[in-house]
């Protein structure tokens, strides 16, 4: 990658990715808005500061690995990938359309740069653990890291805790997990649907080092990853407290936006909040 982006640049990039997400979902007329928006800072920090990747050579053998476990939030990943140069930004408009490489949920075989295929929840941590196990025990590639992003509602899945036990047992130190702790899932708040707390002690009891951060503070995200890398005898999970729908006032905190795309009017309003003053959704003007 080129020169290091400043914090202000990164924050602006996160905002740009949110704009892309709104435009993509409006054009697709379906998709998951809340999680895609609230992951903007985490995905920005990973793609534009933390991860060693080469968008022009997605299969670069020395790359870090990004695994999106809650695949429904993939619009934010697609937006980051386009911004990073994996593909042209114009392609973002094809999201969820027939023949698109940008499937509604990510499919590795369709788009170079995607590391896995996900959507059905709860499997990403296991896949990341398998990859991290390989790096640590089978290849001795100590300099590579595996990042996995999970939703919090996803933690209802038993597969997650099977993986948590596995990673704890094998002390997978190159595995760094993020939990997008936005407190919502489809049927309501996570604590109503199926309480997750005390989340920190749950992970600690599985043998993980836990770091809790504000998931919208890019400096905190970067710092937490550096801390995680310094922990060399356990896997690390970063519980990132986020606001569902972050950045768009009328979407924030509202679980109704989990699996809904904005219509044209709502998208225009959202874009206005994100600093796009033109009220008409026009791909050229919104730079998509």
């Amino acid at each position, binding site marked *: 990658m080129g020169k290091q982006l400043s914090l202000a640049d990164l924050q602006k990039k996160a905002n740009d990715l949110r704009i892309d997400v709104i435009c993509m979902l409006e054009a697709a007329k379906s998709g998951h808005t809340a999680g895609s928006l609230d992951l903007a800072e985490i995905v920005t920090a990973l793609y534009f500061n933390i991860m060693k990747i080469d968008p022009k050579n997605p299969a670069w053998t020395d790359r870090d*690995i990004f695994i999106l476990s809650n695949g429904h939030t993939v619009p934010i990943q697609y937006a980051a990938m386009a911004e990073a140069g994996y593909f042209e930004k114009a392609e973002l408009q094809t999201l969820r359309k027939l023949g698109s490489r940008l499937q509604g949920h990510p*499919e*590795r*075989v369709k788009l170079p740069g995607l*590391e*896995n*295929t*996900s*959507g*059905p929840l*709860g*499997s990403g941590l*296991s*896949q*990341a*653990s*398998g*990859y*991290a*196990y*390989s*790096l640590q*025990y*089978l*290849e001795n590639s100590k300099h590579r890291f595996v990042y996995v992003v999970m939703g919090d509602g996803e933690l209802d899945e*038993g*597969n997650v805790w*099977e*993986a948590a*036990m*596995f990673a704890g047992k094998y002390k997978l130190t190159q595995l760094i997990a993020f939990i997008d702790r936005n407190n919502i899932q489809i049927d309501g708040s996570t604590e109503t649907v199926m309480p997750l707390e005390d989340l920190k002690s749950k992970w600690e009891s599985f043998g993980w080092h836990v770091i809790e951060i504000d998931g919208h503070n890019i400096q905190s995200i970067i710092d937490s990853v550096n801390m995680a890398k310094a922990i060399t005898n356990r896997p690390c999970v970063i519980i990132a407290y986020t606001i569902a729908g972050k950045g768009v006032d009328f979407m924030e905190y509202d679980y109704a936006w989990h699996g809904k795309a904005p219509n044209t009017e709502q998208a225009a309003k959202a874009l206005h909040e994100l600093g796009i003053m033109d009220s008409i959704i026009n791909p050229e003007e919104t730079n998509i």
Partner: protein
Amino acid sequence: MNEYQLNPDLFNDNVVMEPIRAGFGKGLKAIGGTNDKVVALCADLTDSTQVGLFRETFPDRFIEIGISEQNLVTVASGLAMAGKIPFAVAYAAFSPGRNWEQIKTTIALNDQPVKIIASHAGISVGPDGATHQMLEDIALMRVIPNMIVIVPGDSIEAEKATQAIAENGKPSYLRLAREKTPIISTENSPFEVGKAYVLREGTDISLMGTGAMTYQLLVAANLLSEKGINAEVVHIPTVKPLDSETIISSAKRTGRVLTAEEAQVAGGFGGAVAELLGNQLPTPIVRVGMQDRFGESGEPMELFDYFNMTGEHIANTAEEFITNKPQYHREM
């Protein structure tokens, strides 16, 4: 026609009996020695699934997963993403019994060359009863696009199949059985993924079998020949992709097809053959196997008898079928 050398001692009293799973254990050890990308994972069933042999030989490439079959196949997916060739080993009742969606999404759709090794499949697991007698796995696995499905006929074939799928670069399912069964082939018999083998030529009916049921078909063919019925026996270790050429040409020769499997006939091997014939050469077919019911506790051969799956029962089924159904599409 493929040259297939049957075990010359097959019908002698001293025929060697060996569990099909044993061939897997040997095959995995062999391929582990020549390909260091091969790794094995097991869900707390290391010795009984025969993966213990690999663990002893290559301890650094063996990963104990514990009793967590969803984790078994998804960790395997991750290892494959990292360039390994993972063999994910458990009992069929639990894998794919419990983790079908993970197999579909993280292995088949994700196109990762994970090998799902399912031991103790079928009713021959015996006294453990219906919960542990996996009968639906052939159907479950063959409906997944991009999945190879193999049911070896004996331990020698299982050894060859294990080595063949290790380097095919594809998601693959290998179904194994617990009980000792006769060795039907020899070291020199051919095995190729996607190929079916005519073990015995005939004119009156094609007996098509997968897994250890092929042995029962050979027994049935001998009994039928005593009654003047000339049965062809086709061994079909690869359920997916089916060797449609061999199957269709056999059905053309005989005009009647009987399939046999140690699994539910609905959606299973018999279902696959019926679909093929229905599409390409409608032919009267009777399917031997589990008829939409669960198994139960019992000794393996007792259960085979109880569920009409022994060579004797199959011969009777074939004879009745021949009596009642006309012969179609016969081309001499």
